[in-house]
């Protein structure tokens, strides 16, 4: 399993003035690394909770999950693995709990899943699609 969650589609509505609404995804999957302290396996992030802000709506379909940022008007497509990760992140209290559940579901090493989840969270947060709350931050 890799962090290949992004369908590479990130779009906004064409406006009346311009129909050119494409914006290329910048996400590049990285090789999974089994090292404890990598930027993609952040201990603080693993202990954090994740929530979708009010300005984000999403819907899961058979082949992808579509996420709309109401602040930017941009649509984002997640492949089924990314969509499932987002669903579990919403249902669990911490990223680490989500990783445990997903590791069991996909029968993958927990370290690999943690790395993928941290990578996904970083990308979603950079697009203002999720908010992460570190323990004790409230």
């Amino acid at each position: 399993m890799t962090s290949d969650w992004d369908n590479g589609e990130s779009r906004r509505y064409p406006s009346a003035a311009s129909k050119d609404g494409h914006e290329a995804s910048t996400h590049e999957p990285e090789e999974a690394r089994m090292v404890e302290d990598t930027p993609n396996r952040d201990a603080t992030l693993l202990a954090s909770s994740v929530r979708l802000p009010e300005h984000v709506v999403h819907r899961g379909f058979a082949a992808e999950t579509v996420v709309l940022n109401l602040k930017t008007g941009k649509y984002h497509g997640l492949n089924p693995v990314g969509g499932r990760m987002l669903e579990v992140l919403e249902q669990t209290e911490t990223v680490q709990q989500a990783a445990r559940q997903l590791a069991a579901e996909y029968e993958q090493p927990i370290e690999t899943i943690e790395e993928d989840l941290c990578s996904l969270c970083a990308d979603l947060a950079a697009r203002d699609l999720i908010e992460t709350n570190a323990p004790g931050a409230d």
Partner: protein
Amino acid sequence: MIGAAQLDGAWTGAKHTSAGVLPDGCRCVAERAAGGELRITYGDRATYLLSADGRTLLCSPAQLDEQAWRRFLLDAVLLKASEAHGLEALHASAVEGPDGVLAFATQAGGGKSSLASELVRRGHPFFADDALTMRRDDAAIRAHPAPPLMNFPLEHPEGFAAVELGTVLDVVGAEAWLAVRHAATGPCRVAAIHLLDRRPGLRLGLDLLAPSPMPLLDHVLADRGSPTRMARRFELLADLVEDTAIYRLRADPATPVRRLADLVEGSL
């Protein structure tokens, strides 16, 4: 219908302005007031003022007996009125099939009107020429028929004449503006949306796409709107694709339109 001076008097001033040149060479300026009113200037031919709620439309044509201002009113201005009434629109032509609307979307000049006109000629009621409007009526999403008017190429690729479909109201450049004889009369579910992909070397074929609003986004005719409006549009598109077949209709540009129509009819 009012005079230009009266319309100017009713205008409260622009907050946002956008402008462009239309295929007929006329410059179109759309101005949005702080209160949501929309003033549209169609060259020196006409000015229109649409109230924020879409219930009042003032028209001020320069020449009352000209067809051009009526054509622009029915093709473009009414679309803005339907948007104000909460309808969403896809840049698509459409006909009515046995199980609902069959829509055809592509970029401008991609042949959607030619395909729709071929299907109208075969007996399918005309539904829309350039914009398919939809809204949620009760629990279901329904498309609403456009005025029975279409722009028809004088040199149609299949060689049939405009008068086979209806009455020519006007001729603008290489197109006839046509009142279509056989048209749908009421709202209808959308059975299928065909995304036309016509590029050299493509083999004629119809591919059923996995349900997702993503392939439709390039064909949505709308300004972004408020977050509430965007969320409502998202829900409508998401529900639409759950109940509508989305096809990629691929063909080489040299493939005759009748063969595309055969394929569409064969899928019904």
